[in-house]
């Protein structure tokens, strides 16, 4: 599989914070995770991204110790924790539904785990105060969760992991229940928190904006396997296969079917010379090009390949404008500047840049 080869030097260099070896998990006959290997470096922010049901939460729960793997091992800081209780693994977890204890005050929520572990009173107070300061929830300490807004609740949930002074933070879609604006704000706060704490964080989401903005590395999952593991830039600009290419980016990548003819891609009405990344013979291939990498206006003139798109729908989005058109009989999306003035029915001249295109084998769907 790809991911073994794809473990970047980053992880190999420093000693990994979390290591997963040959993890397999089945619910009865259904295998949800398959032969998973993964190394997460100390202080890394890893995002698990994938569509619903691909096994992200399951993997996270295995790391947390909330699910027992059918096979394989999990190491945290070099210690085999596969059969330890969640509370003994040095992890903290934040859930989508916040999972606050509704009958306790914020302070109670934060300190419950510590009190249970018989941490001395002053120590508890100290840690709660520190977490409250970091998360700016000091004034809320004596409220109950029911009296908090969604964003405040999620902060408390993060605080609950924070006070426990854990090595690894696990997040399961922590922002999904919040509205757009709050999501943006909390996202930034999380990023800032990571920068200041430097803990290892593993973060599950199916929102790619979150993944792209937060991650040091992203693991794209599908059907219990990791399809690609890499930095956001790698994932975005050099997707390892068609699935990843299609999954990342909104609106998603345009795909053109055609033929790879050693040095050039030939599709319907199109011939695009592409510097050979892989040798090999001619074969059916798919060219992928992101809507924002399509050149329009004066730039289009200078592109290696020029053609025209018939505009179908125009979506002005303020900062930019989405144009939905048709190329070679297939829908084709273009992202233009917010100032662009295009109307449905227009013939829009466009240019394609081979340097910013991806090419996939039509059969294996792997990147060429």
């Amino acid at each position, binding site marked *: 599989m790809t991911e073994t080869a794809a473990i970047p030097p980053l992880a190999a260099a420093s000693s990994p914070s979390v290591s997963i070896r040959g993890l397999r998990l089945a619910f009865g006959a259904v295998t949800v995770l398959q032969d998973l290997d993964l190394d997460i470096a100390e202080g890394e922010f890893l995002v698990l991204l994938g569509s619903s049901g691909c096994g992200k939460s399951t993997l996270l729960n295995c790391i*947390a110790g909330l699910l027992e793997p059918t096979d394989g091992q999990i190491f945290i800081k070099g210690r085999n924790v596969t059969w330890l209780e969640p509370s003994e693994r040095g992890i903290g977890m934040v859930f989508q539904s916040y999972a606050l204890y509704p009958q306790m005050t914020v302070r109670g929520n934060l300190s419950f*785990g510590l009190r249970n572990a018989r941490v001395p009173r002053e120590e508890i107070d100290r840690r709660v105060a520190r977490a409250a300061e970091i998360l700016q929830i000091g004034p809320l300490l004596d409220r109950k969760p029911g009296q908090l807004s969604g964003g405040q609740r999620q902060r408390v949930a993060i605080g609950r992991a924070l006070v426990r002074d854990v090595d690894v933070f696990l997040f399961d879609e922590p922002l999904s229940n919040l509205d757009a604006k709050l999501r943006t704000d909390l996202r930034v706060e999380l990023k800032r928190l990571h920068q200041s704490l430097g803990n290892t964080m593993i973060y599950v989401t199916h929102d790619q904006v979150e993944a792209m903005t937060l991650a040091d590395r992203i693991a794209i999952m599908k059907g219990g396997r990791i399809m690609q593991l890499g930095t956001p830039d790698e994932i975005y600009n050099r997707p390892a296969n068609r699935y990843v290419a299609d999954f990342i980016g909104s609106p998603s990548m345009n795909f053109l079917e055609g033929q790879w003819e050693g040095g050039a891609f030939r599709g319907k009405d199109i011939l695009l010379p592409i510097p050979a990344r892989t040798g090999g013979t001619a074969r059916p291939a798919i060219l992928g090009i992101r809507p924002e990498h399509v050149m329009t206006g004066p730039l289009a003139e200078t592109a290696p390949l020029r053609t025209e798109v018939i505009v179908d729908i125009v979506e002005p989005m303020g900062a930019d404008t989405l144009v939905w058109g048709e190329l070679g009989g297939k829908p084709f999306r273009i992202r233009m500047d917010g100032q662009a003035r295009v109307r449905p029915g227009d013939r829009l001249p466009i240019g394609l840049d081979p340097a910013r295109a991806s090419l996939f084998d039509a059969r294996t769907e792997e990147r060429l």
Partner: protein
Amino acid sequence: MAVTDQAAASPVRGASAAPLRRPMRLFRNLSAKIATLPMILTATVIFVGCTGWTVVHSFTSSRLLPRLDFVGLDQYDRLWSTPKWYVAIQNLAVFGVLSLIFSLVIGFVLAALLDRKVRGEDVFRTIFLYPFALSFVVTGLVWQWLLNPELGIQGVVRDLGWTSFTFDPLYNRDLVIYGLLIAALWQGTGLVMCIMLAGLRSVDDEIWKAARVDGIPTWKTYTHVIIPMMRPVFVTALVLIASGIVKVYDLVVAMTQGGPGGASEVPAKYVMDAMFGAQNLGQGFAASTMMLLSVVIILIPWAYLEFGGRRRG
């Protein structure tokens, strides 16, 4: 209302249709009002009306037949000077408190056990629930028999060799109320368990996970987190149990008929005895008015909290 002004000022072109009049308030949702008529009638005529009728007659000297010859508070004087009444309310208090506590505790524990992903959950659940299908008459009969010193458990254990073994709650004045309790719990805890189970199932899975990550032991998660969260469930169960307790009558009649020596009298039986045995309706009504009063005193604040406090958003 400025209907006409507004319409006239309206710039809407072609607004030729004369503005409709606002329909009468009373006729809005008329179907709904008609459909709830049975409920309204029941609430007003039966529950309020009949209760009022009862209260009024509790101030009379009605004997076999209801009559309106008022005697003031005589019936209440008599009621509160009758030792049997004291025994009855004392029994109800003991029985009520114990059966509330035990029903809730046993119901919850059983539900919690079943909630631990038990194999054969359906079978266990059905076993715990089936007594609820049986009437108190049947329950009373069976338990009367099981608790019979000669035939029942005591007899069997003695036959096995422990001749000094004594378990005859129904024939012991001090224990009889516990004998009733055993049967009542057998009959009623299944439903409580069902409600609790439903409540436990509605607890967010992530709460459990959060508690495990926090290292909270299971029992402590129940006591500190889950049970406080299940307040509405407990309230529902409480109401169901409580409404049964106030009315407990059949069971007593079937098992002990108030005996031995009136030791298991309960208010509902007092009422029945007064009304039909003693043919002293006024006295029965006075006793039932007292029962009603205590129910209302307990219930009104609760009803206010449950239904006055939160409205559907």
